[in-house]
């Protein structure tokens, strides 16, 4: 770290100060204040953030309950087809809030920057974050920035926290699935994980796969208003994919599930990439899909509402909840056979979110 020409770190006003993050940016002095003003406030500005305090005082709508969630983002690479770590950090937390049926309102964002990160990259990430927040109808109201030595982080890590409010009387929870309920999936699986995977240079293949990273709160609002009390729970199948999420829900509700393999949509290019790498799309991460469990009477209205939303066009019933105290999730294959859908053992894809 002692040779600035190698590390890109310099206290002098050289060119590198202008285009890269240096330790000075994290020192709490003028450079940090400039960075916060020029990069973060410029992109994310809103009445609460603009007050410039270390906290934000926020108005909260009457009634319902307050929902809070937090999520860390360490994805590599920082930029991938269909998104980047900035938009992902907004979508991830917005979706965690939305899965409770809540309307997400406010986010905080904490950045850990690695010394040497190009400022252009940081700007691009923060602007992408601002765009994602705008589209999702949330405001980033407070934040924090730290800089660590080169090698102690990987470009940038972001942690977002968010709060939202659920309407009065709505209680969606992972323990509410009951035998007979339908299991609905909002669209194709595996897009995000394979988009990130294909981007890793050492794999050396090119694809047109794009991450599905998206904020699901709009879709959720349409679902809540269409299916009302029939809607039991929602969850987004991120890390661990569809397989992990179904197993989590089965365990939480103390039920089994039967899934129809043919009803699960996997894009041809995603399937091809999975075949090449020996992966099963049910284990691959998604960032813009959700699973809903719904009482049988609510299925038609729910599917109609989802089909009318851009993020739910391919929504379909992929299976049903059955009685099984051991919580087994079983895939029924096109040949009439069955197999367990296991949790993924160990890591399949490192650092995908």
């Amino acid at each position, binding site marked *: 770290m002692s040779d600035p020409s190698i590390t890109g770190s310099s206290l002098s006003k050289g060119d590198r100060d202008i285009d890269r993050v240096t330790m000075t940016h994290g020192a709490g002095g003028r450079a940090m204040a400039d960075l916060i003003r020029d990069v973060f406030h410029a992109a994310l500005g809103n009445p609460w953030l603009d007050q410039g305090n270390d906290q934000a005082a926020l108005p909260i709508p009457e009634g319902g309950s307050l929902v809070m969630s937090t999520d860390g983002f360490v994805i590599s690479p920082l930029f991938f087809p269909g998104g980047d770590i900035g938009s992902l950090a907004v979508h991830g937390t917005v979706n965690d809030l939305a899965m409770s049926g809540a309307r997400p309102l406010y986010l905080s964002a904490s950045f850990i920057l690695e010394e040497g990160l190009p400022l252009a990259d940081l700007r691009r990430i923060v602007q992408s974050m601002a765009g994602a927040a705008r589209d999702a109808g949330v405001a980033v109201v407070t934040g924090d920035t730290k800089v660590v030595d080169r090698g102690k982080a990987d470009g940038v890590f972001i942690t977002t926290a968010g709060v939202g409010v659920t309407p009065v009387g709505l209680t969606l929870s992972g323990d509410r699935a009951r035998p007979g309920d339908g299991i609905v999936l909002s669209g194709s699986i595996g897009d995000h994980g394979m988009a990130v995977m294909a981007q890793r240079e*050492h*794999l050396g293949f090119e694809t047109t796969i794009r991450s599905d990273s998206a904020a699901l709160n709009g879709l959720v609002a349409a679902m809540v208003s269409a299916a009302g009390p029939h809607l039991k729970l929602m969850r987004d199948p991120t890390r661990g994919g569809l397989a992990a999420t179904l197993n989590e829900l089965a365990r939480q509700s103390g039920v*089994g599930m*039967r899934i129809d393999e*043919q009803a699960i949509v996997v894009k*041809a290019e995603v*399937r*091809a990439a999975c*075949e090449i*790498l*020996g992966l*099963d799309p049910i284990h691959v991460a998604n960032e813009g899909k959700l699973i809903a469990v719904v009482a049988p009477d609510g299925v038609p209205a729910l599917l109609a509402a989802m089909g009318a939303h851009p993020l739910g066009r391919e929504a379909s019933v992929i299976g049903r909840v*059955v*009685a*099984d105290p*051991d919580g*087994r999730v*079983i*895939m*029924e*294959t*096109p*040949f*009439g*056979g*069955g*197999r*367990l859908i*296991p*949790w993924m*053992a*160990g890591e399949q894809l490192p650092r995908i979110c």
Partner: protein
Amino acid sequence: MKYVDEYRDGALAKGLLRAIARAVRADRSYAFMEFCGGHTHAIARHGIIDVLPQNLRMIHGPGCPVCVLPMGRLDAAMALARDPAVTLCTYADLMRVPGSHGETLIRAKADGADVRMIYSPLDALGLAEANPERQVVFLAIGFETTTPPTAAVVKAAEAKDLRNFSVFCNHVLTPMAMRAILEAPAHGEEAGPRLDGLVGPSHVSTIIGTDPYRPFPERYGVPVVVAGFEPVDILHAILMLVRQVNDDRAEVENQYVRAVTAEGNRIAQALMAEVFEHRESFEWRGLGTLPDSALRLRPRFARFDAERRFDMSSSGGRDHPGCACGAVLRGRLEPWECKLFGRVCTPDTPIGACMVSSEGACAAAWLHGSRSHSPDVPEEVSHV
């Protein structure tokens, strides 16, 4: 997806299943071994066991490279990984196989060892070029399918005159393992199963062709059908085996004609022969020590041989006393007949190698696991 969808077609598969159901004779049983872990995985993945006739049994074979690697060589790899000068590169499955002290390469990595998961041996070569101060060792495993790429990188390393790249070669040969299965005694500790036919490997056969299987029908009277890895391929091969048994024929037949020829891939074979020679003998987990069953680098490439570059004296590690991987690999025991299966040994906490790889018989059985245990599988799923 072209060349995949056709071979996963439900209607086609159901037609083949009806043909198999019509062909099997009620007055006898059929025991076929799928040699290859890829077939074992596909059979579990697509729920094929559920839909076969009750008197037709598929026995899992030893064709899982991770599974047959003996403890001694696994321990040697672990020791190599702990050498601070070494960057050890290998395929993913191997990273989770426990050595004789229960430790894995993943654990060694967490303790600070430089262990890399790679998709291609070329990645190991790239690491060696990019890090001249590191000793990069490629832990090579696999049957004939993965051997030509290893041969290719060894030649590339020679052409680039790389001083910091070597291969810990554990490549093994399919025909000798098949012979060991067919020559196993009917009774006793080392017994094998009674077999009416063999489903021959897919990818291995693209390299070696179907000719090397000819001694099996001739010498042991056991039919061999080389089959592709997709469910329709496997069902078709099973039907072909049933017909051979019924006709009292024993021949090598090729179901996988879209990829496999009688003589195989001559270019790959030449590459293998240029770089590798047969070891006099090699230890296999489950099958014991088999002559002419594995490869090592020829003297010309000795400087790329990790076994010559490093002290690799085998520690002679032993399997977990309760682990029945050996008997499972010989087809003698079903995975669930092992005391450890599903209790202490699961894919999350594997004790034996057969539970680690998705091609391992135990992992496949655990994955399938639905027929005997499920309370809610409809009648037509359980019994066809």
